[in-house]
């Protein structure tokens, strides 16, 4: 028997960094609900494309708006859109994934095959379709990303549940007369919860990037609204004159995706490496 040795590994450090970073970004985003250094709808042609200064910590954009304030609002949009898309994904995807497994070979073919179509269509294609049918809006964006979330998380749920289903503890629960949703809720879900949380977080990162890219191409958040993607879109023509309006939202986006993925992989590795290791 080897003695298990628990030491703070690189993984734990990563997980901690991820959590702290994600919470910090979330805090900055939600702070913008109550307060931003400058109102973001206030145009100030006199203060166009300024660099970093005491008045404007991260400079101003082509319309003279404060980049820090815009970034804070943009972060909020990222989190709200990604959060709602993930919520839609979890709400519909987890039961769908469990149903796929319960439905036997054909259930899996139908549900996994169907979600496969969604995943391969990509949300970009879906957003274009939705935008063509209605008009580009934040709602469209959430629906498109949410549908992708349903497909992604249904597959993740199915994949996480499948190996658990054959375990003897599940057989024991069946012997005790449990079945269907009771079995899933009492026995299966608690065992795959960390994995599902990890899948949801990494999908959330995807959704945040998706929101930015759709807004960047003009299919997402529209002009008076704020989004990191929209900031990038507006700052792109004047990039050579002033880099900050591009760098700031780009970096913020990177940090959001990085933080969420750090937490997701951290959770995944902790579950897989820690619990059953000899």
């Amino acid at each position: 028997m080897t003695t298990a040795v628990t030491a703070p590994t690189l993984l734990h450090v990563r997980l901690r960094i991820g959590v702290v970073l994600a919470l910090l970004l979330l805090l900055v985003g939600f702070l913008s609900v109550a307060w931003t250094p400058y109102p973001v709808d206030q145009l100030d042609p006199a203060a166009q494309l300024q660099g970093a200064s005491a008045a404007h910590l991260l400079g101003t954009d082509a319309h003279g708006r404060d980049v820090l304030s815009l970034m804070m609002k943009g972060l909020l949009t990222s989190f709200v859109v990604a959060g709602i898309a993930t919520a839609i994904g979890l709400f519909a995807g987890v039961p769908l994934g469990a149903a796929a497994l319960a439905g036997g070979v054909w259930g899996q073919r139908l549900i996994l095959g169907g979600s496969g179509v969604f995943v391969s269509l990509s949300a970009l294609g879906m957003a274009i379709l939705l935008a063509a049918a209605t008009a580009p809006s934040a709602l469209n964006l959430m629906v498109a990303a949410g549908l992708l979330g349903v497909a992604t998380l249904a597959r993740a749920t199915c994949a996480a549940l499948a190996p658990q289903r054959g375990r003897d503890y599940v057989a024991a629960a069946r012997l005790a007369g449990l079945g269907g949703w009771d079995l899933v809720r009492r026995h299966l879900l608690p065992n795959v919860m960390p994995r599902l949380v990890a899948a949801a977080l990494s999908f959330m990162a995807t959704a945040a990037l998706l929101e930015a890219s759709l807004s960047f191409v003009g299919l997402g958040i529209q002009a008076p609204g704020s989004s990191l993607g929209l900031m990038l879109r507006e700052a792109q023509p004047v990039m050579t004159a002033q880099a900050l309006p591009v760098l700031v939202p780009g970096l913020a986006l990177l940090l959001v995706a990085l933080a969420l993925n750090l937490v997701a992989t951290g959770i995944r590795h902790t579950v897989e490496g820690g619990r059953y290791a000899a």
Partner: protein
Amino acid sequence: MLLEITDLRVAFGDVVALDGVSFSIDKGERVGLVGEAGSGKSLVALAIARLLPKAAVMTGGIKLDAPSIAIVRQDDHPSPDPLKRASELVADRTLLEALGVPADRFASELTPAQRQLLLVAMAIARKPDLLILDEPFVLLDAPGQRRLVDVLAARTMAMLVIGHDLAAVAILTSRVLILEKGKVIEAGPTGDVFSRPSQDYSKSLIAGARIRARTLMRSPIGTDLLDVNGVSVTYPDRQRIFRRKPAVTALDKVSFTLRRGEALALVGADGAGKSTLARLIAGLGKAKRGTLAFERMVYRGRDLPRLLRKEISLVFPDPRFAFNPELSLGASVTEPLLLDENHTIEEQSERLVEVLRAVRLTPDHLDLYPRDLGLYDLQCLALARALMARPKLVVLDEPVRLLHNRQRVEMLMLINRLRADFGFSAIITASNLELVRHIADRALVLDAGRIVDEGTPGALLETPGHPATQAMADARLPEVGIGVVAPVGRQSSRARL
């Protein structure tokens, strides 16, 4: 000297895992290392092979004068290259055949026991000067153990055999060391140590390996309780891209009757269909043909009526997987009470306390999680769970297979006592006829899904009627501690042919 270890110490932080271990192995010598879980046996092997975990601090001398060594580590999931056929990993087909490993199968298609044997074959085939085997017998069924013992005994290389299975170590090795909490407390020629141990700990270890009395308190055998009538089970053919594999027949027209109060053993090698039958009786899986009848109520497996579910319970072979890791043990153990909703809370807790007391555990155990307990305690809780609903029939699927020698004996005695106290009928599966001798009134021998022999375990061992029974009888290893340790003969393997 091939290997000389002097004053080996291994520590993890403040925890000393090995404390001053010294021994040597000569060319061609076979040495055994015996001790209970946590005694540090595996660390000795890892230290020799320089595979100690990073956190371990090692001092002392290991002088290895062997050009090549091979080590087979202890692993619940032995994993030779899954994409290679057994014959690609070990060219020597006679060796594979002697171990019972199908040469033309991919490693991924083998059972864990066969994979374990394949790893040992790979180690042997390299003809190392020193072969280190860490618990090589754990995953094997009784015939598999015997085959491995026979193969190893015929080799000339030096070996270090680590194990808790005293019988196998006794037969293989000429010298043995007994390890307790990281210290060698006794060492000497195997025959001497096992027949005349000097330390109290070794005495209890060796005495514990011997099965003592059987209980005499049994309820009289009465009318029919369970009737299995021509049951066949096939596993659906695994579909491949281009060709369909033929369906696997797990059970083939199995019929037998269990009487009230009886303890019936289903004995067979791995893959004979024991577990499939046990699970079917308990209400898992489905019979393709034939029916089962419990007190005249007919069912075919998972359609076991809810009313009957509380009358039959099942104990799984590996208690580590039989409990939900995320649920407290108390919640798991009381789960069968869901089948019988007419009880007040007082009755339920009364029953829980009674059942826990019967398996010698306390209510404190109920707040723990499966990862907090060892195999033996978990298996006791599995028994407690099986008894919660007061079943008339308890099906025990290889209840002692994973337990260490001493725990095995304790568990068998516990099952006997529970049967006397609770008066249930029992079906026990095992790969070892010798073990069930002490708990079963009658045994059925299964081979490739069919019942091929029947009788009392004693009679089957004395006069085996079928080759499969013969193989079971041959698989017996001489008991340790009684007189001389006999050298391994070849006669057993010839008798099987």
